[in-house]
């Protein structure tokens, strides 16, 4: 087990915690006493070798990464050879968030495993990102884009899209009106909105 695991971007990152929660299919290799409840289908007290489990990445990783692994893992199909061809053909045509909301982040985590498909994974992610980046930027720059498109993007691209959109809005505001204005801060505006909606609900 790797004792020194570094956390990216930091230990408290919500996105990283959610990305490492994504599931992998694992196969138990050794008998683990008194943890039989991890497999819902069996009633035995111990976890038996050969049991197939769907485990979150963080657990799968610590069970797999050691000199003497407890479980073997199988990487998700969308990081495998057949899906790689789809990505190579046209990455822009795919709704990546349907594959995984944390496609890039999770991919980087998966790449840490010793699996034949993992070696090429970082390269694949980079290539996918490069070919999709122009598209995302176009969307962010174009004001006619439907903002709902953000929900179809994986997390990394969504963040880029939203901040790109925001800076575009700020630029337009600056062109039209200039700087030096005071605005109600977003936090407070949202707070007011929410208060108003609960108020209306109560009225009903």
């Amino acid at each position, binding site marked *: 087990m790797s004792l020194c695991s570094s956390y990216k971007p930091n230990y408290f990152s919500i996105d990283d915690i959610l990305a490492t929660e994504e599931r992998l299919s694992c196969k138990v290799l050794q008998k683990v006493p008194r943890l039989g409840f991890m497999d819902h289908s069996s009633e035995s007290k111990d976890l038996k070798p050969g049991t197939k489990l769907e485990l979150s990445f963080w657990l799968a990783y610590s069970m797999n990464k050691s000199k003497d692994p407890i479980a073997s893992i199988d990487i998700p199909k969308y990081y495998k050879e057949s899906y790689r061809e789809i990505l190579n053909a046209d990455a822009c045509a795919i709704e990546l968030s349907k594959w995984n909301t944390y496609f890039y982040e999770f991919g980087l985590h998966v790449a840490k495993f010793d699996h034949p498909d993992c070696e090429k994974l970082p390269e694949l992610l980079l290539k996918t990102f490069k070919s999709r980046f122009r598209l995302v930027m176009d969307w962010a720059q174009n004001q006619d884009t439907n903002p709902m498109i953000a929900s179809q993007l994986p997390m990394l691209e969504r963040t880029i899209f939203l901040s790109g959109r925001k800076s575009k809005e700020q630029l337009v505001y600056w062109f039209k009106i200039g700087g030096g204005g005071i605005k109600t801060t977003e*936090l407070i505006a949202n707070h007011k909105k929410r208060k108003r909606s609960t108020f209306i609900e109560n009225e009903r």
Partner: protein
Amino acid sequence: MFGRRGVELVKELDQSLDSIPPFNEELITEILEEMQRLYNENRIDVNTRPDDHETYLSIKVRHAVLKRDKRCILAYLYNRLRRIRQMRWEFGSILPPEITVSLSKPEVQWFDSYSKCLATYMKSIGDNHGLNLTSDLAPPKSLFIEVKCIADYGKFEFGDGESVQLKKNTYHLLPRSECEQLVRQDGCVLLSPRSLTVNCKRHCERKDQETKRESLSACRSL
């Protein structure tokens, strides 16, 4: 299943990015209980079967869950504190009651002491006069701004004792330093910097005309 609750906790924060969800004490207690249980099981295993290889494996798994639970709880608390700190800068030193009910007692205490810290610091800078760091976050371009009331505010008093009635849908030209907080926090006032410049010009022209008229009448009286 192991560690499921920790993620629930973090997801709760993720789903409400622009506000603060009520402090989920129940879930935290559940996670802490799980951690305590795992720790006890590990301790018993270590004490009773120290040389057993298989026991070592279960300890390893439990330890991973322990670490995960710890990370989730800490991330939850830390990210909440960051939001509370942000609120100090946006809402000011007094939080609206809807928000205070979502905070836990230690969080309220933390907010108070952070507030105090910030106030002490702001008092200590600015050549003995103190400097309000929460105002003028963007460099001001003019001393006066034109604002439109979007709600009935009532009497608004300036620092020098003068006051103005702020009624809904009325326009005012006010000193920027006085009403910045009003715009930023109460949301009851809007401004449009462009109309400000136009109106300022008009204002100056009118002043010019007035002075002209005055000088004219002065001439006549002579």
